[in-house]
């Protein structure tokens, strides 16, 4: 067991604990993996302590090569030194924000039983429109959601999407989804800002298509939530 390998393994253990403690794990992975990741950090540190006391040169593993050490140090440097950030609206543009039905959001028949529409998340609304795509049947229903502002070129100038990433596993599979909002006569908030949107659904024309859109009574800037993704 070489010193370098030991230090690297311990540093990874420490990094996982740091990412857990700082709340940054929620920017990277699904909450279901948070506890396994914490345990992994603890196990890595425990193994490093055990291995440090092992009689020297008992391991068949050669010391890691200098390029391997550089490669392994890179994520540690990025993770420890840069302020952790969730995926940005630029990534949303890259991936294309889904506004209508999104396949992976399942909508079992009884998903909304006993829930008031004001408590729906953006993902719940996507499910609701998947279960019943007819815009007029949602008209007048109250909406209260929060997300970041995304400007879609294909929508009219006074429309924006209030958006979130849906994460299944980790940031690599994050899929942005969004609900259209029409600020009639006004300018949409700056792209990328986090906002809380309150209003009701109404039916409008966009690009020659009848669509449901939120007519807001209030669009309030808010701080980015600690868990910015939906699951």
């Amino acid at each position, binding site marked *: 067991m070489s010193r370098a390998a030991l230090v690297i393994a311990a540093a990874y253990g420490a990094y996982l604990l740091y990412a857990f403690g700082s709340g940054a794990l929620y920017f990277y992975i699904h909450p279901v993996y948070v506890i396994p990741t914490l345990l992994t950090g603890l196990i890595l540190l425990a193994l490093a302590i055990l291995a440090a006391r092992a009689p020297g040169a008992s391991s068949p593993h050669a010391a890691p090569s200098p390029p*391997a050490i550089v490669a392994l140090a890179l994520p540690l440097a990025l993770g420890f030194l840069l302020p952790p950030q969730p995926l940005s609206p630029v990534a949303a543009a890259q991936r294309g924000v889904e506004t209508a039905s999104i396949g992976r959001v399942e909508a079992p028949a009884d998903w909304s039983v006993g829930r008031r529409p004001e408590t729906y998340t953006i993902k719940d609304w996507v499910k609701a429109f998947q279960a019943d795509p007819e815009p007029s049947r949602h008209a007048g229903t109250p909406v209260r959601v929060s997300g970041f502002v995304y400007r879609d070129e294909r929508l009219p100038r006074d429309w924006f999407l209030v958006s979130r990433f849906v994460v299944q596993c980790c940031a690599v599979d994050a899929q942005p989804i969004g609900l259209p909002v029409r600020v009639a006569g006004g300018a949409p908030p700056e792209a990328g800002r986090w906002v809380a949107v309150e209003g009701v659904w109404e039916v409008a024309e966009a690009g020659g298509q009848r669509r449901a859109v939120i007519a807001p009574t209030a669009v309030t800037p808010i701080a980015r939530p600690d868990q910015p993704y939906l699951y």
Partner: protein
Amino acid sequence: MQWSARAQDGVTIFLGVIIEAIPFLLLGVLVSQALALAVRGERLAGWLPRGRLASLTALAGLGALFPVCECGNVPVARRLVTRGVPVAAAMVFLLSAPALNPVVALSTYAAFREQPSIVVYRLGFTFAVALGVGLLLSVHPRPAELLRRRVATVEDEGHASPATWTGRLRRFAGGALGEFVEMGSVLVVGAALAALTQTLVPRTVLLSVGRGPVISVAVMMTLAVVLSICSTVDAFVALAYAGTFTDGSLVAFLVFGPMIDIKAVLLMLTVFSARTVALVTIVVAEAVFLLGLGLNYLVG
């Protein structure tokens, strides 16, 4: 702003892949080290059935006992090879284990409850392709040449294991961490490539191409390689394309991704020779492509 945000997204994806993979990587090396402690010498090879087909099938089944991602399987496969398991059988294990296990079957079913046939095709095709590649490699006259030259010599298991429990535990820890660091450096490179392609190549570019029965299979297979998503969760991602892409292309994505992606290939290169990895990649790609086309034309 655009570019700094893009760089930041790249970092987030990069760290996301690494953080997501580390627990599976650790689980894999722990299983690998436990195997090293529990199984001495050539014994494991002795446990396997004698016949060629039977031993390859047994190894495909062994994969079912290790519900870990491809990054966790490579250390196990490497251990198998150094323990005297035939090279072809180790490759069967490596190809089948990521997708042919209970966790993946369950997550795929959860994603495709409406289309359980997708689960059946995924497991069946994975088994068939892995076994086919194994049979192909098993006819090689000098199997040792299929391996990377160093792998056979790097493991020195000759010395006696420490008598005490703590001694054994310390050695276990040292071995696991050594293997963890070795595999980890490759994982970092794979994660970097996955993050770079995901931030620099717009997904829409890949997607706008793929609607036809042939091109959709090619596109989804490419996507599987580019995304390098863990096999326990890739079914949910495939589901995002369920409305627009052909069934054959979805199955191809689910079968091909766990076997061949950037991360898996880099890890495979630590055990097998570059020629073997290239051959296996080509054969698997062709087989999965044809199976995907078959589904689209004959069933879908």
